[in-house]
């Protein structure tokens, strides 16, 4: 996949683990690299197991999410951060 070079974005999870996003394929992979416990099943947006609260910031979906997500939630298996983001896992 073609990924443009960009400034490293900061990802903060559960207000204690912060790291910079290094163009991983998606946020789920990036969080797993930090040993953050995230639920997952399908890893392609249709099961909804990785629903995570987006406290602040913006994300961009690289796969169209099919699972139900609330207005303040994101599916980390199919998105990347567009700005610095703050997340809260369930």
């Amino acid at each position, binding site marked *: 996949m073609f990924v443009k070079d960009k400034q490293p974005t900061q990802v903060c999870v559960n207000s204690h683990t912060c790291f910079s996003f290094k163009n991983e394929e998606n946020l789920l992979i990036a969080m797993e690299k930090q040993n953050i416990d995230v639920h997952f*099943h399908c890893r392609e947006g249709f099961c909804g197991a990785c629903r995570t609260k987006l406290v602040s910031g913006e994300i961009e979906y690289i796969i*169209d999410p099919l699972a139900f997500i609330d207005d303040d939630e994101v599916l980390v298996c199919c998105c990347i951060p567009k700005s610095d983001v703050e997340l809260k896992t369930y």
Partner: protein
Amino acid sequence: MKYTTFNQQPVDTMQEHMFFGKPVNVARYDQQRHPIFEKLIEKQISFFWRPEEVDVSKDRVDFLKLTDAEKHIFSSNLKYQTLLDSVQGRSPNIAFLPIISLPELETWVETWSFFETIHSRSYTHILRNLFNDPSAVFDDIVVNEEIKKRATDISKYYDDLIFYTQLYQTRGEGVYDVDGYTHEVSIRNLKKKLFLCMNSVNALEAIRFYVSFACTFAFAERELMEGNSKIIRLIARDENIHLTSTQHILNLWAKGKDDPEMAEISKELEQEAKDIFMLAVQQEKEWASYLFKDGSMLGLNEEILCQYVEYIANQRMAAIGLGQPYESKSNPLPWMNNYLSSDNVQVAPQETEISSYLVGQIDSEVGSEDFEEFEL
């Protein structure tokens, strides 16, 4: 209101709710009230598979090597799953299609049911290979007390909704005596029955398969019954997408994005919805105890299986706004995820690179960067 297979009055489906509006006439998808259902149809069809593609012949050798307790676990789970898919292969069609008013939802329900019939056929495929005469296994499903207990709770909400829909569509609203019982048929009452039925289906897709899945994958972890495990992985992937659809329906109602009356009912019957879910959890735990009555299997016991059911129930209840009533916050069976991840689902060796076969999918997007190396 009488059901018609082709409503001859013009209908603007953009103004209809998911259920209990005007019957669908033209199966058109150019305009959609809830486009998510067409997306689910596309995804589900891309997952198409046939049981015969999976070679289960090695499983017979493995099966003969299992202990009696393990044989009981294995065949009981297959029986239970056979029951679940027998119900799911017909009920969404019979219960929901006569009352659906959106073409995309109608087609989704038909697609969903069709996949459940693939699952049913796969159980026969597995059992034919394991037993010279699989009929004893199938015959036991309707007489086995443990399975019957669950069958009652699974089918009763469907049966109730179907019966009331029949009364409504033949006689309209009113109070009717049928076989000594009084039935109050009103749209409000029908909507309540629909809500409870959808919650029951949601709980079924959400947790009723998972005790069985865990046992199957625990066998696979020991490199046993791997043909069966491949099939169950495909089934698990399908069930996940079915669950997504019922979660969408319940959330569209609860958040007032469809029928405002259903939003009211969602609030009114929230406790009942919770009870349906928690009863299913309880029954799954009892099922785990029945499975392990003669002894457990390597890598799995009743306690850890019950924790897993609670863990998965927490997630699935939170997804429809019912909170997380159980203690289990972390996954007691982390290896399960390897079997539930879409990337690891594989049918034939030539498909190792792709998890679904979408035919004729060509990326037609061309950006300026694609021409970077060209020079004139």
